[in-house]
């Protein structure tokens, strides 16, 4: 589904990604772990096309299409979703308006025709019910005054509504206490489908207790330094990133 080949990227002229290779197949969960400043968030922004992140070398194919040639909204239309580390507040825009606008944009892109107000409300109710969320959250302005946990659950709701093929979860565990983490992880697990894939970007192993990855990669110094099964995450937790960081510096 996703093929990253020799990806190099710079931010403000500074090289951050220095040759990433990664293949993600449908149905798989990949965890990308690494120390601060290793390029984890940069990778998520490069994949979603954020301005200011310049690809200098390499390619990214998504379902065989060149992802790097597309605008952010086209990538979203193709089915790439980023759950933000810091979900953004949009004052005055009700969550439901935002969701409807997003869903219909994606549907238009896919040539599926827009949902009308009634159809949309029905769909959203199903999703909030599935995720055990209260409908109150729909009326509030997007992420405004939400707790850390609510913001992350709201990301999960957007994911549920948009049904992406590939979801990248950027530090979804950051700023959450253990109960909130569990709730969000439960939501994400509910959204797993055999035809979809997940990339979890995380600093700590604890998220992986709840969303169990098939593959774990260690990102340090802009390259993937090691790959393995879920046991690699436990190793990292015990031994730290020091040896990989040292390897990256060399």
């Amino acid at each position, binding site marked *: 589904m996703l093929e990253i080949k020799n990806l190099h990227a710079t931010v403000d002229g500074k090289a951050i990604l220095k040759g990433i290779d990664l293949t993600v197949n449908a149905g798989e969960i990949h965890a990308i772990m690494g120390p601060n400043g290793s390029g984890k968030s940069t990778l998520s922004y490069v994949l979603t096309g954020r301005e200011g992140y310049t690809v200098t070398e390499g390619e990214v194919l998504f379902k065989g299409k060149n992802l790097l040639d597309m605008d952010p909204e086209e990538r979203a239309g193709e089915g790439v979703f980023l759950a933000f580390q810091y979900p*953004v507040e949009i*004052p005055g825009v009700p969550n439901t308006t935002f969701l409807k*606008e997003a869903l219909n*944009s*994606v549907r238009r892109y896919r040539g599926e025709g827009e949902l009308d107000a009634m159809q949309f409300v029905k769909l959203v109710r199903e999703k909030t019910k599935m995720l055990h969320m209260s409908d109150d959250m729909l009326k509030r302005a997007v992420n405004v005054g939400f707790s850390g946990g609510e913001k992350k659950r709201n990301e999960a709701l957007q994911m549920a509504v948009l049904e992406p093929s590939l979801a990248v979860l950027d530090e979804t565990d950051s700023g959450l206490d253990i109960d909130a983490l569990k709730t969000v992880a439960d939501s994400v697990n509910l959204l797993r489908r055999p035809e979809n894939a997940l990339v979890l970007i995380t600093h700590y192993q604890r998220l992986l207790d709840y969303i169990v990855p098939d593959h774990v990669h260690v990102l340090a110094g802009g390259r993937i330094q090691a790959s393995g099964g879920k046991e690699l995450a436990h190793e990292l937790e015990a031994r730290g990133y020091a040896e990989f960081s040292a390897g990256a510096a060399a």
Partner: protein
Amino acid sequence: MAATVETVERVRALDKYKYGFVTDIESETAPKGLSEDTVRFISAKKGEPEWLLEWRLKAYRHWLKMPEPGWSKVQFPPIDYQDSYYYSAPKSPTDGPKSLDEVDPKLLETYAKLGIPLNEQKLLAGVAVDAVFDSVSVATTFKKNLEEVGVIFCPISEAVKNHPELVRRYLGSVVPYADNKHACLNSAVFTDGSFVYIPKGVRCPMELSTYFRINAQNTGQFERTLIIAEEGSYVSYLEGCTAPQRDENQLHAAVVELVALDDAEIKYSTVQNWYPGDEEGKGGIYNFVTKRGACRGRNSKISWTQVETGSAITWKYPSCILQGDNSVGEFYSIAITNNRQQADTGTKMIHLGKNTRSRIIAKGIAAGRSDSTYRGLVRIGAKAAGARNFTQCDSLLIGDKCGAHTVPYIETKNRRAIVEHEATTSRISEDQLFYCRQRGMSQEDAVALVVNGFCREVMQQLPMEFAVEAQKLVGISLEGSVG
């Protein structure tokens, strides 16, 4: 990249003013230029009584001596008042249409293009329309429904003939002819506009709306609107504007006067979308409008809501004079400027009576190389014990070549009054736009969504029929402003 070029082309196409067309209806115009003769010509055309002609002439003579108001931030070359026509009427085979069937089909076609269904649809929507085409009102619908409850809703020229005592009593009583140069010019040469009278205790059964248009070449429009709400009555009035594209700047100097007596309430909403000029600001409308309401009665209320997106220059301060004890004035405003547009707009809340209250919520959005200023006066008179004001001004900047300014004036002569002013300025955030785009929205849809959120408090004040239209307009006005 092909996709990029295509997007640019599409944005450019959208950016062209959507209502840029001109109808070639023959106009019966006054001679070019402004003189006492022009004033007499207009008055004669309208078959006006002597007192009104005298009033116009007084205004004209005063206008000659008046300086242009110089305190606003807007800039434009001096206006050549002699280079304009001050009266034009669409020609009609009969003296005037009695029903829609008699209306010039070409005129109706123009309305259709502008998206104004002047037909039964409006009845279903509960909206009565008094359409101003150029300077003469050509059709007034739903009069009957209104007549049944005693509401008068007609062109002001008709009111002069049929209700002279009301017009004579209230015309110029809120905005005196000598108020400012633009209002003074209007007093001398106003050609049409609406007259509304709501009798005692009547709640007007429908939203009243007038669509103003400018159509003939080089014809400035000078509407005059007068709304009187008698004791215990209520009316909601809607005004909306779009105009065909032009090459030369057009002066528009309207005057709106509102009078609310004891326990009466007037809600006045405007969506203004006049031709703003091209990307360089050439050819847009100069919108120099004087709008003022007098809360004369106890417990009366006047509420202004405006969405200003058009015009090359907007100079407009819908105000309230809170004379009656416990009276309330409100001003809710959205002003959007793009390209080279300039807006200097705000309000004046003059607290004279006891326990009078006012609330001002102003949202300014500036994009391109435009300049947006909020200018507001809150004055508390010596006798206005217990008066309260709350003002909130928020500015949103899009890009780094535009300007937003907040200029509050606060004068208080009573120690038992409370005046609050809050102001913020922010930039549209890259984070917000990226967040929306990551969820599938185009850049332009993202801008429209974020800006509509920013304006929500004001949008909610608009009647439903207008709110939807206004939200779309926000998106249209900001097309091409980012990226």
